[in-house]
C-alpha cells in the first residue's frame, strides 16, 4: 500500500513537473517555430499560428558561417572548464578539509574576484591584453574566463566537499594509502556529482558569456553570443536566423547535460558508504 501511494505521488509530481516544464518552455518552443517561419508572417497581427515552413533562415545562417562560431565557442568553453576543474578541485577540497592559516580570508578573497561588475573590468582587461597582445586569441579569452569561473567552481565545490565523510579518508590513510591515492580513489569518486554539476555550470557560463568575448575577441575568436548581434541589422532583427542560432547554441549543452547527468544522479551503487 505504501508503494501504491508512492506511485500515485510520483505520477502526481510528474504531472506537476511536466506542467511546469511546458509553461516555462513555451517561449522556447515558440522561438523554435520561428526557425522555419517565413519572414513575412513572423510578427503579423493577429498572430499566425499555422504556416508553411521555409528553410531560408538555415541557408542564411550557414552562409554566414555560424558553424565556425559554434566551434569557437565550444573550444573556449571546453578549455576554460577543463582548466577550472584541474585548478579548482584540489583547492576546493583543501578549503573544506584542512585548517589553514587565514583560511577564511583566502576563501573570501576567491569570491572577491567575482564581486565587481564585469562591465567595469572589461576596459582594464582590454588595455592590459592590448599591451600583451592577447586580444583575439584563444588563450586570452580562456584566461579571462578563469576570473569568474574559477572562483565560482571553488566555492561551490567546497560546499559539496563538506559532506564527504572524513572517516573514509582517515581510514585509508591508516591503511597506508598515500595521500594522492586517497584523493584519487576515495575523494574524487565521491565528489563526482559535485564536480560534474559545477563543471557543467562553468561550461555554460563560458559558453554564453558575451561582454568579454566581444571586447577581447575579434575576427579569429568570435564566439556564438558575439555573432548573434550581427543578426540585429538595420533591416530589422533577423528573428528566424536568431532563433536558429539560439536553439542550436542550446543543443550541445543539452547533450552534455543529458549525458553527464548520470554522474550527478546517485545510482544504485552507493559506493563505499556502508554500514
Amino acid at each position, binding site marked *: 500500500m505504501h508503494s501504491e501511494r508512492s506511485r500515485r505521488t510520483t505520477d502526481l509530481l510528474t504531472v506537476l513537473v511536466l506542467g511546469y516544464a511546458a509553461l516555462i518552455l513555451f517561449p522556447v518552443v515558440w522561438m523554435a517555430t520561428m526557425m522555419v517561419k517565413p519572414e513575412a508572417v513572423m510578427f503579423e497581427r493577429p498572430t499566425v499560428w499555422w504556416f508553411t515552413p521555409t528553410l531560408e533562415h538555415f541557408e542564411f545562417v550557414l552562409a554566414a558561417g555560424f558553424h565556425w562560431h559554434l566551434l569557437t565557442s565550444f573550444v573556449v568553453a571546453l578549455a576554460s572548464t577543463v582548466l577550472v576543474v584541474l585548478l579548482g578541485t584540489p583547492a576546493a577540497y583543501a578549503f573544506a578539509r584542512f585548517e589553514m592559516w587565514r583560511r577564511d580570508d583566502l576563501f573570501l578573497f576567491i569570491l572577491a574576484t567575482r564581486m565587481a561588475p564585469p562591465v567595469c573590468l572589461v576596459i582594464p582587461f582590454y588595455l592590459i591584453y592590448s599591451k600583451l597582445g592577447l586580444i583575439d586569441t584563444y588563450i586570452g579569452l580562456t584566461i579571462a574566463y578563469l576570473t569568474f569561473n574559477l572562483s565560482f567552481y571553488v566555492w561551490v565545490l567546497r560546499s559539496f566537499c563538506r559532506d564527504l565523510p572524513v572517516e573514509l579518508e582517515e581510514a585509508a590513510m591508516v591503511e597506508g594509502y598515500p595521500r594522492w591515492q586517497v584523493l584519487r580513489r576515495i575523494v574524487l569518486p565521491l565528489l563526482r556529482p559535485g564536480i560534474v554539476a559545477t563543471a557543467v555550470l562553468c561550461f555554460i557560463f563560458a559558453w554564453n558569456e558575451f561582454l568579454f568575448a566581444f571586447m577581447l575577441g575579434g575576427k579569429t575568436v568570435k564566439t556564438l553570443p558575439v555573432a548573434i548581434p550581427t543578426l540585429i*541589422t*538595420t533591416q*530589422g532583427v533577423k528573428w528566424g536566423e536568431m532563433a536558429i542560432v539560439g536553439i542550436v547554441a542550446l543543443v550541445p549543452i543539452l547533450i552534455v547535460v543529458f549525458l553527464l547527468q548520470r554522474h550527478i544522479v546517485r545510482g544504485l551503487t552507493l559506493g563505499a558508504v556502508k554500514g
Partner: protein
Amino acid sequence: MRRPCDATGRTLAAPNPLVVGLAIALPWLWPATSHAWSYKEAAAPYAVQSITVLDEVTPLQETMQKLVPQFEEETGIEVDYQLLNHFEVINRGQADLLSGRGEYDAIMVHSPQMGLLLDAGVLRPIDDLIANAELTSPDVDLGDLIQPSWDTVAKYQGETYGFLTWAYNTVYWARGDLLAHPEEQAAFKAKYGYDLAPAETLQQMRDIAEFFTRAKGEQLAGQTLESDFYGILLEGIKGGTTWWTVWNSFVRNWGGDIFDEDGSPSVDRPENVAAIEFWGDLWKFGPPGMAEASLIDVPTLMGQGVTAQALAWSDFGLGIDREGGSPYAGKFVYAPSPANADYGGPRSAELEPSILIIAQSSDAPEATYLFLQWMADRNTQLALAEELGAGVPNRYSLFEAPIFKDSRLASLYAAMRGSLEYGEAKPRVPQIYEINDVLAALVQQVGLGQLTAEQAMAQGQNEVLSICDPCTLSE
C-alpha cells in the same frame, strides 16, 4: 617608289605620313601629365601594404564589401573590410582608437562621436593627403559632396578628417494607398478643410495622424479594421536616436536648441518646451509600444502596416519597400522631414552624416586615404547603387543618375534630397552621448504622460548643466 622588303621578302606597308607626323608631334602637343590619374598609379608606392577598415553593417556597406576586391585588384593594397553593427562599431571602434591599440587604420564614425574623438586627439587630419596631387584624383570633386553635411561632420578648425561616405538621413514616410483613397480624401477635406496629401508641415502631419487613428472595427479605406490602427509612429525608446530626432526634427524647427551660441546649456527655452509639447502630443496617435520603438522597430512596424505615417531613417525604407520586405511594398510615399508651419526661420531635419576617419596610430595613412577616397568616389558609389539597386547618395550629382532618378523609389530619393538640404551634423560636444541619454529619458516620460514638457526641460537643464557648462571642445 619601290617598297622596302623585310627579311622574309614580304613587302612592308608604306607608313602613312600623317600618322608618323602625329606620332612625332603628339608628345609635344599633349600636356605633360598625359597619363590620367588612376588609383593604380597613385597606389604604386603602397601596393604591398594591407589595411584594416571598420565600418557599420547596413545594406550599403554589405554591398560595398562586394566591391572592395575591385579596389584590391586595381591597387594591390590588401583591404580587410570588417563590418559590425551600430553599437559594436562605436564601442570597438572607440576602444581601439582611444586605447591606441591601432588594430584599425580607418573607422566609421558617426557625427556625435566627433566631439569626443577630436577632444581625445586620435584622428588624423587628411588635408595634407588631399593636397597631395599624386594621391588625390583631379576628379575627386569635393564640391559634389553634400553640404552642409560634409562640412559639419568632417571639418574642424580648418582641418578635414574624412570624406562624406554615408549620408544617412530621416524622411517622412506614409501609406500612399491610404492617402490616395477617395473616401478618406473626402472625409479629410470635410474635417480639416484642405486636401489630404503627404505632409509638408508638422501640423499637417498631426492632422493626418489624428485622422487615421482608428480603433478595431472601424473603417479604413473601405475595409473594417481587425485591430487598432494608428496615425503615426515615432521612435520613443530611451536612447537610440529618439532625442536626436526630437532635437532636429522638432525643437530646432521651433527655433529652439539646447545650447546657446557659446555652448552653454539652454535646455529650458520656451521654444524647446513648445516643440516637445507638440511631439509628446503625437504619442496619443501612436501604438502602445512606441516607448520601446527603436530606430529599427519604426520601419519594421511601418512595414507591417501598423500606422499611417512615420519619421524614419531613409535607408531602412530601401529594405522594407521592396518585394518580400513588406506586404505594403510599393504603396509607400515619402517626403522630406516636415517643416514647422508656424516658424519662419531656418528649417531643420535629422541627419546622421558619417565619415571614415584615419586613426592617428595608422602606419599606412596613404594607402588608407586612397581607399577612403575610392569609397567616396562617384564611380564607386554609382557601382554600389547599381549592385544594390538602391542607395543613399553622398553626392549631389548622384541624384541625377538614372538609377535614382528613374527608380520606383523616386519619391524616397526626392525626400532624401530634401531632408539633406536642411540638416547638419551634431555639434562638437564631447559629452553629447551623456546628454542624449539624459534628454531621451526625459522626453520619453513626456511622451508617456509622466512629465509635462516644461518639467522635463527644467529637469533637463539641471542635468545637462551638471554634465558640462559650457559644452564645447576644450580648446
